[in-house]
């Protein structure tokens, strides 16, 4: 089973978050991220973190969906924390400067909030539905000449090909790791390694282009390049409420001074 696949799969449970329209979740996530990136003060960061965690709990998702953090990333995070702690920046708590650690924590929390929102989206919605949601969201842009239908079809098709493509990358990766490196079997290891990179990409690209050709022929045989629209999700009061909260947070990030103020 592909390592990359679990991230893209919805969890088969029911919850208020599952029942939200996919559009609501996509828009809310983007709006909240924009607010956070614009003004990452502790007050805003903590509020966003609380909101995302509340959503996670509401979504009835078990904690086990969270992916394991690779060892190398854990080391990097830990190393960063040591550096930040040793900086001895104010404010002081029992004579130790914790300012560096606080700055560090804030940056990490901003990152976690964004990744967790993407996770909640994919665990409660499923990628195919997200693809359709993007297509519907983009539609108004056609009035200003953006080729929305084309982008929408491409997004929807790309999203459904994603698991297969990820699986193919895993297969190639596996056959690369299971054979001796050609650089060890040559007098010109650099040149050999370079052409090996080309070989590996070719294996992936040829497979996917064959798939693309089959897909094109199949679509032409059915007379359409666009997937039939699924039933439009119902917009309910809860969707509007979620969007109001998200937009309010974004606006607050721009207008409310927040705490603590940092330089610039």
């Amino acid at each position: 089973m592909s390592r990359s696949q679990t991230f893209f799969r919805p969890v088969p449970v029911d919850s208020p978050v599952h029942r939200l329209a996919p559009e609501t979740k996509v828009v809310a996530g983007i709006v909240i991220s924009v607010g956070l990136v614009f003004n990452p003060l502790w007050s805003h960061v903590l509020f966003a973190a609380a909101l995302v965690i509340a959503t996670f709990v509401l979504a009835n998702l078990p904690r086990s969906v969270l992916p394991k953090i690779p060892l190398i990333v854990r080391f990097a995070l830990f190393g960063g924390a040591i550096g930040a702690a040793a900086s001895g920046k104010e404010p002081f708590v029992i004579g130790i400067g914790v300012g560096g650690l606080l700055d560090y924590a804030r940056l990490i929390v901003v990152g976690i909030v964004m990744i967790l929102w993407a996770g909640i989206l994919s665990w409660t919605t499923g990628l195919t539905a997200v693809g359709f949601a993007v297509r519907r969201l983009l539609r108004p842009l056609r009035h200003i000449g953006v080729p929305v239908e084309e982008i929408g079809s491409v997004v929807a098709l790309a999203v459904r090909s994603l698991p297969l493509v990820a699986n193919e990358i895993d297969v190639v990766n596996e056959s690369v790791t299971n054979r001796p490196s050609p650089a060890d079997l040559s007098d010109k290891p650099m040149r050999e390694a370079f052409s090996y990179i080309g070989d590996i990409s070719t294996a992936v690209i040829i497979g996917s282009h064959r798939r693309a050709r089959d897909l094109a022929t199949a679509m032409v045989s059915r007379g359409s390049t666009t997937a039939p629209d699924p039933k439009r999700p119902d917009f309910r009061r809860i969707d509007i409420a979620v969007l109001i909260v998200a937009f309010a947070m974004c606006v607050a990030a721009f207008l409310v001074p927040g705490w603590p103020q940092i330089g610039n």
Partner: protein
Amino acid sequence: MSRTEHTPNDTDLDRTLAAPKVATKRRSEPLDAAEVADAAITAALVVALLAAGRILASGSLFQVFAAFVVAVLAARRRTRAVVIATCAAASIALILGGLGPVSQAALAGVFGWCGGISLRREWGRLRTIAFSLLLAWPAMSFSVLFFYPAVAINGKLRTLVFENIENQANGFGNIITNVGSLFGSLRLSFIERAANWADGALESTSSFLIDNWLLLIPATEFIYTVIYALAIRGVGGAILRRLDKALVEPAPLSLQPGDHADPLPIQIAGIALKRNGTTVTVPLHLEINPGEHIVVEGPNGAGKSTLLDALAGIDNHDAVIRSGTVGLGSFGGTARVGQRPEAQVVGTTVEEDLRWGLDTPIDLTATLADVGLALPPDRPTSELSGGELQRLALASALRREPKLLLADEVTSMLDPEEQVRITNRLDALRDTAVVRTTHRNDAAATDRRIVLTSANPKPAVTPVEATELRTITSSVAESRLLRLRDVGFTHNPTQPWAHEVLAGVNLSVHRYEMLMIEGRNGSGKTTLARILAGLAKPSAGKIEEAKGLKRALAHQHVRLQLLRPTVSVELHSLAGIRADGKEPSADAERHATRVENLRTTIDLFALQHLLGRRIDELSGGEQRRVLLAGLVARGVSLLVLDEPLAGLDASGRTELASTLDRVRLAGTSIIVVSHDIDWAPPHVDQRLRLTNGRLEELRP
């Protein structure tokens, strides 16, 4: 019954193949179906590569791969397709990972496009770099500076990031000076001085970075631009040449207008077949009138599928004369069902697949029952068997009530009873002209038969003598290679998707044996295949393994496992020997055995005449033969084949059977895992069936 025969004459039309690779289309024209599909797969690849790069340590290499993928698209398709693919990849990345991956997708898109254009124009190194610097460099610098609103417009996130950099520098500087002064107190003052110097260097570097960020971003982008331009120019050209060799041409493929479709009568005069880079013309003259039923017979490669594609208006446009429009895929027009079942599916669920391209409401149960299927509408199409897929595709063709139905081997994966039923169903169509190909002798008396003879007689694969095999099977020693005891497997045991795939599986494999494990899709057979090949660990039970046993898995898509460009280099790489023929200084003896081993394997698999060929010029069957030979030469004594039957026709299966016999002659045991329950290779010692994670033996 009328019967006509057609033999091809060799006319070299190579020049027509050398036509410009990129379809000459106007820039603002909407994407055609082929461009949409290429753009979608490219976007999916970019996202998947960026995602893989986030998980694996060698992340930046995956970013370069993503740029290669876009470069290939840009070299073969219009800029419009590249822009749309990049937009699509960026929006998926935005949803899955926030703003960071978006900029990576944009980077792959911009650098890939510049590199692809240079590849298409066949520019030299300097010109490629100059072009990238002119367009990609300012674009990327601008986007990093201004796309991240946080970096340029608003200073707050920037301040936070910079403060963190400063803190890290100060922190590690403090640690270093403290350690240094410790050494200083031990009178090792030179270490103390070095530590103080390092501290100073760290702090001045960080303040240099922070003070000059406005200049440093363009400077790093400059370096990136040059690196990407050189990498794409160096590697991309080779990828493109191999794509051409693999005959994946960027042919245009447009949707056909569906209004007032009137495909009949139709006349066809000679079809052009492309074989190994040359074109062969089959002098065929044929007229089809409404309601006529035509059966096309002939061996593989005789042009049956090309004939149907010509009638469908997606190939050989010049050879066809028709008065009206084809209306492929539209209601009351032309319907086409191609040969390989997996390649006919467009929808992710049964319902979506049937509704694809049809505006009218549809009675799912009746449409499915028409072809003898009873499937829930939300069943994922990825779980269907070959036979079910064929009937699903046929159902959506019949649902269009076509005037012309083109059916290419649509019963090849069905059991005999169901074949008769479907053939009768097609014969009963009165208002529809049916053209179908078959390799069985099942034409009805009223059908018109057309026989095509082979355009390129394949070199016959010498079958392995039955007596040779008998000596081997009779000498089956009680030497067990692998034993599974009560093996179970649970996917993602700690995660909510946890489900038990295998339970209580007991299995023994002996030397020289060939086992066949059948099971429907979703029965856990891929997991079992991975466990048998040693690529996955079972979550329950025990595995006993013979000492020094080497196992390997051959995937369904063989091409993904063949990495090097030519057969000879690939075989050497798989066997772990230098391809240049030089001996390593150490371990000369082992090297000699390996070389000898490879030589005998090449003879056994009859690969001598293929050694100089490029991998991508080979047929699928030949590619599998190369892979299996390479694995055997590596010393693999238990080979697991996952779904080797998928997409094979009758002659492909015979070829596979012969390859498997060769593997066994080399002394390697085989386990074939397949969802196709209708066919097993000859000489199978044991057939087992996997149902819901449990394995039972089938009595032959």
